[in-house]
């Protein structure tokens, strides 16, 4: 029994070392590679849950997001840690944020679709900003003249917003829908 507890601790240590040193989230498949196929998925999940609760009262938390698991500083440290990087993180313009929202909620969409909803032309730089951030990409082309690109959000977008799936996005206000039938 004693021995088993020890070996579980060892397995958790490997996971902890891997997760603390990986700058990318780790997917279950990647973590299984650590054990060279000698571990069941169910066991891995159990170990991750234990590791998560081991860190419950600590500075970082183990979270599951779209592309896997990662450690991140608890939100309460955000302000203090922000003092380390003097340059303010980029603030996105309304054009960028609204374009992102349209792609997130209506995907896949073309540039034309976005323009239709926003009522203004979409600057190419807006789309490029989002592509460079790794938040959207082109997943195909609509089969109409001009074959416009179809944009969708990426896993990276969900990861960066701490989400596991699109369903976890804030609810879009759909209330007017019924009332709309004037």
């Amino acid at each position, binding site marked *: 029994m004693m021995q088993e507890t020890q070996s579980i601790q060892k397995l958790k240590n490997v996971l902890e070392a891997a997760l603390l040193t990986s700058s990318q989230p780790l997917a279950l498949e990647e973590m299984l590679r650590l054990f060279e196929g000698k571990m069941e998925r169910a066991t891995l999940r159990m170990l991750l849950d234990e590791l998560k609760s081991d860190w419950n009262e600590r500075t970082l938390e183990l979270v599951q997001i779209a592309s896997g698991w990662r450690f991140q500083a608890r939100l309460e440290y955000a302000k203090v840690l922000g003092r380390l990087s003097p340059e303010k993180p980029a603030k996105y313009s309304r054009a960028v944020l609204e374009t992102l929202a349209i792609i997130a909620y209506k995907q896949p969409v073309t540039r034309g679709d976005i323009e239709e909803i926003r009522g203004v032309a979409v600057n190419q730089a807006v789309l490029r900003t989002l592509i460079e951030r790794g938040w959207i990409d082109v997943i195909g082309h609509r089969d109409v003249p001009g074959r416009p690109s179809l944009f969708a959000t990426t896993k990276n977008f969900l990861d960066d917003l701490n989400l596991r799936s699109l369903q976890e996005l*804030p609810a879009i206000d759909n209330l007017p829908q019924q009332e*709309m039938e004037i």
Partner: protein
Amino acid sequence: MLPPVISARLHGEPIASLPQDLYIPPEALEVYLDAFEGPLDLLLYLIRKHNLDILDIRMADLTQQYMSYVDKMHAAKLELAADYLLMSAMLIEIKSRMLLPRPVELEQEDDPRAELVRRLLEYEAIKLVAQKIDALPQVGRELLVAQACFEHVAKVQLPTVEMEDLLVAWRSVLERAKHYTHHHISREELSVREHMSLILRRLQQDGMLEFTQIFVVSEGVQKMVTYFLALLELAREGLVKMTQQAAYSPIYVQASEHMA
């Protein structure tokens, strides 16, 4: 302070005064226009500001308010995006269609405002949810990800770049930068640019060179011509300065930055 001169016209009549809350100091107009993300955004602002019922818009009022805005933008000679003018036309069309008698049985779905209302509501929903998304904690902003280091046993392999990758990248740059599309880079030009860098590197090291030192006669005429073209291009782009004290005295070449 003098009252502002108003040159806006509504239905061909000059408007004596604008609604109080619509008044924007002319110098702030540009900033204000920037604050709107387009005609839908402006319409939403007007509707919400005047507490109008979005589901039963009084088209006459809304059109009037919208037009006085657009007129003010005109009066201030701001370059008005076509989107705003298109919306003016649409509002006027809806307004005029509402004046036409409608067959009773079609009344419901034939409300000329329906499409506008649908678009306004859809845009408003997006606008609100965009703010919510922005408020979520983000990696790089509020979220800091663990990234302690470890000694890689396997050496990190640096990405490789093939000539093909570079060509693809360059082509996509050219496709985007329209003003460059007619400006194809030829081999000769590349060679000139390479020699521009070579000359600047040498000037960086030596500070100043005599004109003839730039050229290495043994490298052949072709090479000398390239160096000469590179020097001319550097001068044209203001990256080097050439000086000569008197006629027939030596010409000196120096990087512009060292002149100061």
